[in-house]
């Protein structure tokens, strides 16, 4: 898989970022012409705004008056903002529960879907479809009803004589329903795992069989090590994206982050600070905090990867 090559290059670059031998640049003019839209975009919509928001993070800014310098006030305020830390905790729980569970399920199901098995494309489609729909408002609306007091989850539980709570309205369970929604979209990483499994040459298994390795042994000695780069790739990206989830928490909680802030994701709180309270400076400080956290966890992921990710080169 070529994306793995890319990732390896990144991982290597992270380990040793020495300058490379200078090459000639025969296509300078064409290169920059082709790249022009992207260059303009990156300057106007990414680099410029990043610098601006870094500045705004140290100001008081309500969009109506020009920003006033506030030093580190925003960050001091963040330290004492209980709602912010609650939202951070909610986000961490969401990320660290939903991502591993989703990936584990994706990997498990991918392992079951053998090459050439009967119904393969049917299963793949059925499992994949939710991951395409899962980000939409309609599904979040559906989720509110599925896990509502009279929803189908409680309808199912009632067969066993269990009277379920109104999951969405209960502070202990509301976050759980959003986590379940994330797990429901396991189809996208599953498809990537399937592609990865297809890359493992048959001869490895044949050789192992000759050597007398059983099913379990083959899984732990061949399949799992050879899949670790893909697991790692999925893990890194899913963590990054999970930190930024917004729509589902917004809709499931009716825009409130409730009940009792139990689904107040960090991004939801940031949105409220920026566009409801018009604390644009504070929101920018929060955004930079988010960036640093994601950066740190991604860095940690890369660092940890050398202990468990197997590269055969």
């Amino acid at each position: 898989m070529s994306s793995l090559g890319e990732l390896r290059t990144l991982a290597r670059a992270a380990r040793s970022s020495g300058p490379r031998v200078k090459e000639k640049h025969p296509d300078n003019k064409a290169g920059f012409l082709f790249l022009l839209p992207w260059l303009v975009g990156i300057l106007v919509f990414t680099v410029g705004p990043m610098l601006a928001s870094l500045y705004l993070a140290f100001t008081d800014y309500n969009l109506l008056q020009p920003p006033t310098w506030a030093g580190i006030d925003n960050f001091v305020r963040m330290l004492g903002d209980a709602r912010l830390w609650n939202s951070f905790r909610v986000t961490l729980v969401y990320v660290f529960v939903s991502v591993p569970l989703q990936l584990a399920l994706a990997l498990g199901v991918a392992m079951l879907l053998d090459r050439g098995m009967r119904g393969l494309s049917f299963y793949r489609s059925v499992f994949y479809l939710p991951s395409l729909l899962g980000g939409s408002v309609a599904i979040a609306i559906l989720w509110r009803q599925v896990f509502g007091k009279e929803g189908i989850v409680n309808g199912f539980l009632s067969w066993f004589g269990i009277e379920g709570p109104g999951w969405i309205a209960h502070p202990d369970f509301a976050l759980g329903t959003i986590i379940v929604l994330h797990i429901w979209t396991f189809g996208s990483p599953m498809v990537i795992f399937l592609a990865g499994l297809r890359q493992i040459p048959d001869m490895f298994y044949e050789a192992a069989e000759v050597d007398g390795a059983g099913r379990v042994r083959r899984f732990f000695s061949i399949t799992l090590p050879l899949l670790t780069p893909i697991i790692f790739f999925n893990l890194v990206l899913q963590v990054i994206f999970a930190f930024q989830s917004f729509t589902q928490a917004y809709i499931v909680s009716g825009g409130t982050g409730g009940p009792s802030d139990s689904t107040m994701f960090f991004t939801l709180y940031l949105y409220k600070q920026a566009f409801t309270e018009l604390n644009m400076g504070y929101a920018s400080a929060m955004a930079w905090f988010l960036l640093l956290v994601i950066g740190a966890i991604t860095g940690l992921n890369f660092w940890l990867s050398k202990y468990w990710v197997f590269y055969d080169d």
Partner: protein
Amino acid sequence: MTSTGSTIEPPTTRAMVGASVDQPDAGIARRRWMSVLKHAGLIALSVVMVYPLIWLVVSSFKPNEKIFSDLSIFTGDLTFENYLHGWTSQQLPFSVFLVNSSILVLGAIVGNLISCSLAAYAFARLRFWGRNAFFAIMLGTIMLPFHVVLVPQFVIFRELGWLETFLPLIVPKFLAADAFFIFLMVQFIRGLPKEIFEAARIDGAGQFRIYSQITLPLMVPALATTAIFTFIWTWGDFFGPLIYLRTRENFPVSIALKGFVDAQSSSDYGAMFAMSVVSLIPLFLAFLIGQRYLIKGFATTGIK
């Protein structure tokens, strides 16, 4: 679990499955049982995965008072009433929102196809100053949480007078803001045989001609993947319209649906379900038509 008989068979048995080896019947029967068990599990999981969707569709055809009193998806009492009522329940006819979403989707697709393919060609085929650094930056922007650019971008668009227009949601696409698709296309172009490009150069074709007449036709699968993903993501996009479009005439479907959640007191669940189904139909069609490209595109990039 311990390893079973099959593992200590000599290698030749692989070639003679079905021929008489030690206890073949037991092995085959066991394997068949495993297979049945596996399919049973997968089918059960399929039902769990799809059931909410089926329930949604069936409920959208049920009379309002029956949706929660009878959760069954097998029911004879079906009506089209929810659709008629839901279509006009958000003050403007739902067609307005569908048209708005379609404009956004179309703009985003055209923008992404043009700008991302240009950038991808440069990254994949041209050698110019700073290419590797730019490429690293491009990859970095895929992972960058957009929140760090959110406020300044909003200020820029406000200064430009673009609030309450589709421009903040479309113009960035023409400037290759969706770096993910650049990455996808770069991967694809790199996989094309180099000889094609060398032959074209020898024939004296300029870079733009190689891009437009050779590369683009060859990368149709990557373009299709991009178009379909852009369709699905833009159709479902919630955050962008939420902050840039606040008047009803401008609402795309995603924001219009939010109206059902805001006004839950009315508790017109049938209408809400019906319009949810309407909003999902284009996604479902995109999935049906583009499944092949979606799964391929996924597999080559690994990014949702």
